[in-house]
């Protein structure tokens, strides 16, 4: 299985100057957890990803009105990229290695074509993911969770 089987296509990419309301609307309309951020509409070089989590943590929790902010104020920069033909195993390894839950997907020219999240991989890959994940859960202790969150 490859990234192309689980990724969100770049129909809903945004740029750093996109306002947060529009980014939120993209997430809502496309039912995506995250949207890839590209340099500009003309230059589709990916700069990072913006997620629900980024908006709530960096805007709302900080007491800032998200309606007055742009994607550039909240996004997570990412230097790690995958292509549509990257295997999901490799993608999972990269997420683990870099401790991120989403990555931008690029074509051979380095242009952004979508975004892939760890949860999408798990959910789309298996219809019985919850039960299996729960069975696997004891692998990590709460201490490990705290360490990872802190990172």
């Amino acid at each position: 299985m490859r990234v192309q089987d689980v990724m969100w296509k770049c129909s809903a990419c945004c740029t750093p100057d996109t306002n947060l309301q529009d980014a939120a609307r993209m997430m809502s309309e496309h039912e995506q957890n995250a949207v890839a951020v590209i340099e500009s509409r003309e230059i589709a070089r990916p700069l990072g990803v913006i997620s629900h989590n980024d908006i709530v943590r960096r805007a709302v929790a900080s007491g800032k009105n998200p309606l007055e902010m742009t994607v550039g104020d909240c996004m997570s920069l990412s230097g790690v990229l995958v292509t549509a033909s990257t295997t999901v195993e490799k993608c999972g390894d990269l997420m683990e290695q870099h401790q991120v839950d989403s990555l931008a997907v690029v074509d051979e020219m380095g242009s952004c074509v979508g975004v892939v999240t760890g949860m999408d991989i798990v959910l789309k890959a298996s219809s019985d993911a919850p039960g299996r994940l729960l069975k696997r859960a004891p692998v990590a202790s709460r201490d490990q969770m705290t360490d990872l969150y802190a990172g």
Partner: protein
Amino acid sequence: MTVQDIMAKSPAVCTPDTPLSEVARMMVDHDCGAIPVVESREAPRPVGVITDRDIVVRLIADGQNPLEKTAADAMSASAVTVSVGTSLEACGDVMEQNQIRRVIVVDDNGSVIGMVSQADIALNASPQAVAEMVREVSEEEDANNERVPMGGAYSG
């Protein structure tokens, strides 16, 4: 093994009148994407759940400033719960049946005492587990594909 063995114990909770800025800070402080909404601090019976997605999709996407809103304005007003003695398999079934990624764990009095989150488990609790899971799923998919009879191509 039951949900008690893996749940996040004593999760942060809010009430319907908690301001959303405070709810968001709880999500940051407790490193979670969902907060159970309870009747009151004194009677922590769940009346709903609020997630980071709820705040983004129900308010910000709609042009509403979350700093002027409370949990009641964005929460899902239904709370799927499991009791503390529920087996992991049964808990997984409840999540699948309700198509939810998080479930509230309640004690015998119906009070919130924990939270089991598929997303937290999958993405934050153990990245190694995700990598292993993906590997397993992928291998299974490949095996399934190999098992598809030649005639199957015509039906697609």
